[in-house]
């Protein structure tokens, strides 16, 4: 829609990218994102991203699951319709542990995953902006948003080649 202009540097190797990121950032150039075919450890740190804390939603959803499961078992057999089943108490606590455990895991796993999808804007109908199609194969693509940088585009291009980019392209979206 709005004509945004990105400079995309293509790298071949994860170590080179890592170096380049550090150098570019030290220059004060803001990197939009680096796209990799596989997870490169430390890259997020190099890019200055916060530590991903997916454990938080997992815990929250998990706790919800625990409570739900406990309420479900307690309410149905303990309150709504208590029955004498094999001479046990109306609400025999130990026998409900498996249910509580399973529902905890279920909600934690799904809650966290869907939170992840939501945070990353992933979904079946999402049309992604692909800066370089090879970034899912064997290349590392570093995208720099020109609008967000004061440095001129030619300068960035040159600097990119300098830090090891095999190709430097311009992508308008």
């Amino acid at each position: 829609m709005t004509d945004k202009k990105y400079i995309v540097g293509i790298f071949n190797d994860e170590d080179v990218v890592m170096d380049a990121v550090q150098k570019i950032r030290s220059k004060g150039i803001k990197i939009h994102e680096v796209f990799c075919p596989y997870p490169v450890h430390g890259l997020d740190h190099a890019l200055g991203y916060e530590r991903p804390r997916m454990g938080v939603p997992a815990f929250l959803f998990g706790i919800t699951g625990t409570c739900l499961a406990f309420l479900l078992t307690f309410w149905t057999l303990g309150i709504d319709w208590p029955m004498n089943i094999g001479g046990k108490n109306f609400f025999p606590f130990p026998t409900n542990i498996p249910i509580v455990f399973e529902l905890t895991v279920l909600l934690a796993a799904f809650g966290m995953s869907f939170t992840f999808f939501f945070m990353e804007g992933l979904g079946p109908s999402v049309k992604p902006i692909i800066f370089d199609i090879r970034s899912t194969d064997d290349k590392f693509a570093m995208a720099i948003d020109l609008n967000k940088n004061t440095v001129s585009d030619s300068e960035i291009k040159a600097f990119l080649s300098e830090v090891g980019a095999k190709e430097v392209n311009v992508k308008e979206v």
Partner: protein
Amino acid sequence: MSVVSPIREHLVTGGKTYHDVTEDICRHVESKPTKEWKIAFAISVLVLLYGGGWVLWTWWEGLGVWGLNKTVGWAWDITNFVWWVGIGHAGTLISAILLLFRQKWRTSINRAAEAMTIFAVLCAASFILMHMGRPWLAYWALPLPNTFGSLWVNFNSPLVWDVFAISTYFSVSCLFWFIGLIPDLATIRDRATGIRKTIYGALSLGWTGGAKTWARYEDVSLILAGLSTPLVLSVHTIVSFDFATSVIPGWHTTIFPPYFVAGAIFSGFAMVQNLMLVTRVVYKLEDYITLEHISLMNKIITLTGSIVGVAYITEFFIAAYSGVEYEKYAFINRATGPLWWSYFGMMFCNVMSPQVFWFKKLRENIVVSFVIAVVVNIGMWFERFVIIVTSLHRDYLPSSWTYFTPRMGDIGDYLFSFGFFFTCFFLFSKFLPVINMAEVKAVLKSSSEKKSNH
């Protein structure tokens, strides 16, 4: 960052580049199916249809087409169920536990193993349905509000725990598998055109592989692995509760949870071994699934096989030590009663046969590995049969003691699950990448021969 022990063989051989990996693996998804695939698929579908006929007949006529009787209320049905659930353990276990332990060699096999898990769990679930007298009412096992005054379910029943455990395990496994697939699906999407691009595009959820996404993705994977690990252990624990919480001598045993889990890992790895060896040959993935992988798998098989062996012996000891007459008889009857052959089959296949892997030569022999893996799976089937049938057929009151003889219905329904499993597996291997490309690429640099090439 990652430390690889120097003596370890390379995880990927053949000097692959990142692009080679993509090519090797996507090729099978993108090209027309091979003749071998077609033949194998056709056979699976035939078996599925034949077995499906028996399943329909079972539903139409009633469970009398099986060989069960008043005393032996479960036999092949639950044996198959537990067997499939056990097999279904390997996938998530490989992915989750090995991920937690940072065992990088898992990368080549976890995708296929997870897929297998899902199909095996589906097969197991089909037996939950099939073994019911009135399967069309299976949804009554779920706590849904209803017009019966809202009559709930019995949360005391291990079968309800099963329902929760299996469905949770299935959904979480699917999720785990799917999340692992997303980057690879994006790879395929970026190579594809037309309708395939749309489909793989939708499936990949618009994945781009940004560093931030990767970071969160890794975190999600790790936590999922963390959640799946107790889950995977809980599933077979709960399945074992079906027996352990009962009063039947031979079932009523506290040793069951660990024993079942070990058995599940055992049979699961054996099944993964089987499928991996087949895939390796058919898809020519020798560079990804190396002898090192096979050897490692065999070691685990030997270990878990020995664990179940110890469990078998422990059971006898406990039975003798307990002084409970019924318990003692149940175990003597297992080994010497009318169903002694199943006990012998179990002992031979599960405890004896994996011991050949103490020899390196045999451990790294593909044919031997394959044969032993098959034998182990047969043995694990017998183990469940022994536990279920020999315990039931002679329990407390001798007046009710009977014998169990399978009928065609039992066999047909078992065949159905095989047909279903292999049909699903072949479809998977055709339409989805059988090896996790992103993960393999991630370990390529640090552990392949090419690491010093740039």
